[in-house]
C-alpha cells in the first residue's frame, strides 16, 4: 500500500459515489460496471489503482467454481481508510448542501 495520488476523474468519482451508497456492501466488477455505467476498460485499472492505495479491498466469492459451473466473482468493498478518503474526495464536489454521493 503506497501513498500514490489518485486522480479524481469522472469514472473515479462515479465509482466512489456508488461505493459510498452502501459502504459495507460487496460488489462484483460486473455489478459496479452496470450500476456506475463504467466500461471494463476503465473500471478494472481503476479498481486495481484504488486497491493498491488501500481504498478498496477485494476477495473471491465463496463458491466452488466446479460445482457452480462458472468462474468465481471477485467482490470489492471500501476500507475504513477508503471510506474517509472517498468522502473527502467527494466533499469537494458537494453542491448546495447535499453531498455528491447522495445525489
Amino acid at each position, binding site marked *: 500500500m503506497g501513498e500514490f495520488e489518485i486522480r479524481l476523474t469522472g469514472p473515479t468519482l462515479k465509482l466512489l459515489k456508488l461505493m459510498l451508497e452502501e459502504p459495507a456492501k460487496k460488489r462484483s466488477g460486473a455489478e459496479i460496471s452496470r450500476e456506475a455505467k463504467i466500461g*471494463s*476498460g*476503465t473500471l*478494472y*485499472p481503476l479498481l486495481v*489503482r484504488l486497491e493498491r492505495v488501500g481504498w478498496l479491498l477485494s476477495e473471491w466469492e465463496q463458491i466452488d467454481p466446479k460445482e457452480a459451473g*462458472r*468462474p468465481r*466473482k*471477485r467482490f470489492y468493498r471500501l476500507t475504513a481508510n477508503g471510506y474517509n478518503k472517498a468522502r473527502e474526495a467527494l466533499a469537494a464536489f458537494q453542491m448546495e448542501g447535499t453531498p455528491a454521493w447522495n445525489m
Partner: protein
Amino acid sequence: MEYVIGLFFGIVGSLVAAEVYCWAPNIARRCVERAVLRLPESERDRFREEWLAHLGECPGSLGKLWHSMGCLSGARAISAAGSKIALVRASNTERARSIAWKGFLTKVIVYSLEMYTKPAWYAVLFGFVCIIFGMDHTNQLVSWIDYVLN
C-alpha cells in the same frame, strides 16, 4: 445500378452481421484470454477468472464483445500502472494506435467514396452480385451483341 449496389451491400452486411453475432461469445472469450496475456504473470490467474465471470454476466452477444474489448484496453493500463515510464510508453502507443486507426478509417471512407463514383467498380461489384446469385450474364451479353450486329 445503385439499387444493385445497395442490395449487394445489404446482403453481404447482413450475412457478416449474422456471423459475427453467432461467433461473438467465442470471440469475446478469446479476446479475454488475449487480454490476460498482456498482464504481468502474477496477475493473470486472478483476472482470467474475474473477467470470465464478468463475461458470463454480460447480457447479449454485443455486450460480451464490448466487455472483452474493454478487457483488452484495461489489461494494457493495468500492466502499465506499475511504473510511470511504462505508463508513458503505453499512452504513447495508445496515441500512435489511435492516430493509425483514424488514418486507416479515413482512407477506408475516402476509398469507399472514390469507389462509389468510379463506374469501373460498378462492373466489379456487379460481377460479385452475379457470382453470389449464380447468374451467368455472358450468354445474355453475347445474344445482345448478336442482336445489335444483325
